[in-house]
């Protein structure tokens, strides 16, 4: 009886694992391999060779780029941690009015609309941006915020710290209150309590966030390009892939190296957290004890939070100014303010907005489903080779959107979708699929962290009480992972809503285009800067509202659970 159940369970898990693998193979591995194989060809003879990889290591520019990327990625993790930890700690540890608001505002930096976000930052922090113009006028010096590698680190940390914030908050609120109480009974208080007990228990969330920041920054293209820093790996790959006519295999070689290195660092982080147990059995208590702050503590906490928020939201303040400004050129503020950019955009923006909500929403939904399945198969079964799913799902972070887009055109253009009679490559669904693959790493890390905090004992208990594996997953595991799943959904949705590179290749009808494409179209002309910024503001607001709603949803389910837990407790007493 017992054996039979075990066998059935393995079959179910194997079927899940195999279908996820199939999805990843068809929509990620094969299309990308179709583009990447150039890296293994001799450019002249067309024969298979590894000489291009030798060339990579022989080229000093590439070696330098590699170390620059590594340095920037590591430093960005450090700076992002400094920004994210206080925000996460204050909001999960204390009774704070407006915690949901802070969390929503904390996600907004992830939504940096293409091009306009860059212009907004230049207008504020650039060599002749508002701040430097003021500094120059008052004190006679300027600070090169946006120059060189340090500029990249600054912008990347401001942009990606929400990865740490979101995952760490989810983790913190999953910690068992009993642990904390035990520590307090043993005499640990204040910072010592945080350092020795709370933070280590929240490690899965922090590690997930930090790994994402590292991977994303290491593979990021947008920021170095915006600051015109060319001596990093991702921009080197991009510049070589996207120049016309040149058949330089090095762009693809660099992409392959980015993927391999990303997998390597993932493996290292896996080694670091392996063999430790972060799970808590007790879930009814709803995480850390929240206490009220004394008045002066409240003032201090608010001061820190407001200061951080002003810094991290400054690009969006710039964006808002840009969207309401008439002409803004070499001056602290725009010359005058107007609403005409919004008027122009409102007539054209609705289809873009509808498409964005549809695509990003679907993609994020598919992402959390895939991610939960992968996390479960990897951490709760002993199927051979299950780690492959985790690695494949995360490798997507290192594949440039352009490469994925070209791969899809190459693979799916000759495949007509039945009933729609249109090539799959030009059907709108392919954009959703591309976004899903591109954002899967975010959801995957969040869901993995959440699952690591769920104790196996709870599942075993459920199974002992007669629940099958499927109903255990549905009734026990997924509800306990809800916070992490929501975190994964939010990151995937927010970033998918402003993704451009793959979209730009795949859009085949204007009626199928999302907001990012609309912004791109405006940002090609001098007159389009204002309307482009207005569209960018709309994108930020939409994603912000969606994030806020999902927070409310998570908080409400948690409150309900807590209430139910209390009822059960009083009933038992």
């Amino acid at each position, binding site marked *: 009886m017992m054996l039979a159940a075990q066998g059935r369970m393995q079959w179910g898990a194997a079927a899940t694992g195999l279908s996820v693998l199939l999805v990843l193979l068809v929509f990620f591995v094969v299309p990308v391999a179709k583009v990447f194989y150039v890296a293994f060809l001799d450019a002249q003879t067309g024969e298979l060779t590894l000489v291009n990889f030798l060339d990579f290591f022989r080229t000093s*520019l590439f070696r330098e780029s590699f170390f620059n990327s590594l340095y920037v990625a590591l430093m960005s993790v450090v700076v992002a941690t400094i920004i994210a930890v206080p925000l996460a700690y204050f909001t999960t540890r204390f009774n704070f009015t407006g915690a949901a608001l802070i969390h929503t505002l904390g996600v907004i930096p992830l939504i940096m609309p293409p091009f306009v976000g860059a212009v907004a930052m230049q207008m504020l922090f650039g060599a002749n941006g508002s701040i430097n113009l003021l500094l120059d006028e008052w004190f006679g010096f300027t600070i090169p915020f946006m120059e060189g590698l340090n500029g990249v680190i600054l912008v990347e940390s401001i942009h990606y710290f929400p990865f740490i914030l979101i995952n760490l908050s989810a983790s913190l609120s999953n910690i068992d209150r009993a642990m904390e109480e035990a520590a307090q009974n043993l005499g640990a208080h204040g910072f010592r309590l945080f350092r020795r007990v709370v933070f280590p228990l929240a490690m899965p969330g922090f590690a997930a966030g930090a790994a994402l920041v590292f991977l994303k920054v290491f593979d990021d293209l947008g920021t170095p390009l915006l600051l015109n820093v060319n001596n990093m790996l991702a921009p080197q790959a991009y*510049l070589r892939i*996207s120049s*016309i*006519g*040149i058949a330089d295999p090095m762009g693809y070689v660099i992409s392959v190296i980015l993927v391999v290195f990303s997998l390597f660092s993932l493996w290292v982080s896996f080694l670091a957290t392996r063999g430790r147990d972060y799970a808590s059995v007790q879930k009814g208590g709803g995480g850390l004890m929240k206490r009220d702050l004394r008045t002066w503590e409240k003032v201090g906490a608010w001061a820190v939070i407001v200061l951080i928020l002003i810094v991290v939201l400054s690009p969006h303040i710039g964006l808002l100014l840009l969207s309401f400004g008439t002409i803004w050129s070499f001056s602290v503020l725009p010359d005058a303010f107007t609403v005409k950019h919004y008027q122009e955009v409102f007539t054209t923006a609705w289809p873009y907005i509808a498409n964005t909500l549809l695509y990003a929403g679907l993609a994020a939904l598919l992402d959390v489903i895939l991610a939960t399945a992968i996390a479960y198969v990897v951490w709760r079964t002993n199927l051979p080779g299950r780690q492959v799913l985790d690695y494949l799902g995360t490798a997507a972070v290192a594949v440039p959107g352009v490469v994925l887009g070209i791969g899809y055109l190459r693979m799916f253009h000759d495949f007509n979708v039945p*009933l729609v009679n249109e090539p799959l490559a030009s059907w709108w669904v392919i954009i959703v699929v591309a976004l899903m693959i591109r954002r899967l790493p975010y959801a995957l890390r969040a869901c993995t962290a959440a699952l690591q905090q769920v104790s196996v004992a709870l599942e075993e208990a459920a199974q002992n009480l007669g629940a099958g594996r499927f109903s255990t997953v549905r009734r026990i595991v997924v509800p306990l992972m809800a916070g992490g799943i929501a975190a994964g959904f939010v990151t995937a949705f927010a970033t998918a809503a402003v993704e451009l590179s793959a979209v730009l290749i795949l859009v085949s009808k204007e009626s199928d285009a999302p907001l990012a494409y609309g912004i791109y179209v405006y940002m*090609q002309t001098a007159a389009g800067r204002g309307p482009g910024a207005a569209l960018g503001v709309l994108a930020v607001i939409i994603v912000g509202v969606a994030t806020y709603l999902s927070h409310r949803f998570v908080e409400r389910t948690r409150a309900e659970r807590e209430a139910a837990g209390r009822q059960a407790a009083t009933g038992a007493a």
Partner: protein
Amino acid sequence: MQAKLLRAVGLAAVLGLVMLATPARAMEDKLVVVTSFPKDLTNVFKEAFEKKYPGVKVEMLKKKTTAGVKYIQETASNNTSDIFWASAPDAFEVLKGDGLLAKYDVKQQGIPAKIGAFPLNDPDGYYKGFAASGYGIMWNTRYLKAKKLPVPQEWEELARPVYFGHVGMSAPSRSGTTHLTVETVLQGLGWEKGWALWKAIGGNLKTVTERSFGVPSGVNSGDFGIGIVIDFFGFSSKATGYPVDFRYPSTTALVPANIAIVKNAPHPKNAAAFIEFLLSPEGQELLLDPKIQRLPVRPELYESKAKHLPNPFKGEIAAKVAFDVKKSKARYNVVNSLFDVMITYRLNDLKAATKAIHDAAAALKAKPNAEGEKLLAEARALVAAVPIDEARSLDPAFAGVFKKKRKKATDKITGRQAEIEQQWDEMVRANYAKAKELAEKAAAMAR
């Protein structure tokens, strides 16, 4: 239960048949244009064309030039695009080389064969020029006033020490039009002198932007004061209200912007009608829209409606250089790669050397010193040095290293692009470092 299933399958089958039977290409009611042009340009033509041909719906697919080329290449087996419409002639050359364009003979009369020294249309008849644009210098008036900089008139002036860190441009490998400017100067001044000028300007650059629109965008913001841009970027920025201005230097490249029909276009009749409309007097006048501002290719317009624009057919924009298309084509990728290796990727080293040279020159001017002058001249020569000479740049065997495939099996090609770029990079970096050292020495002598 079974009956229900059968009914569902039957319904699906019928639906499928109806979908499949719907004639996709029975009537030409559509036109799909893949274009890199901005909305301000495409909308004007879309509206005018749809008004003239009611019942035809124009779909403008906007893609970056490189993305557009890739899109047409990858979708060729099941082509859904009718027209490719973009600036850079080299993008059309790539598509033509892959056999993805259709030949077309224009019916419209009265369009000259050449604009300046550049042939307006593809000699093989695949793509047509529909507008001209010239390269020039754009500047931000507030910026120049605040930093007390004079307005530059000629390319050579951009190398002056006053402009150190104030200039922006794109790279020839990113932007086909920038490529033409670089190549025009190389042909006009000669290989060595041309590169010397580009590196002297390169040393003054604030930045090399990733796309060509990055240059006018930076000047508009005031991020840098002066940009090397194509004319319509300057004109349209000014028309939008930015405090900027534009002028043509006396040596400029005139570049045609082009249009072509894609091979196996689903709507060939509409495609032809669109090209005819674009080249008709009516269509050409639309180019004068204040947000578009491109130079029409019908000379008679410069006598009437386009009087305010410089006439490229009368030498008002002096395209002094007799542009050699064959030469340009032969070393296209070599020039791109050289520019990136010497300027784009080593911009910091180049800037450091240039700064040292500017400082030394100023010091020597205040306190002349013959030995110092000699060292300074050496430093300048080191910065200007190019890894290969002109003959090598035109050697097909060498240029082949930068191309995808051998043309003939007998072509022998030795070396790989990465290998050669690494050699160049080594030389360039050593030269810049040495030049900086020499210039610092020269400056010390004048102290």
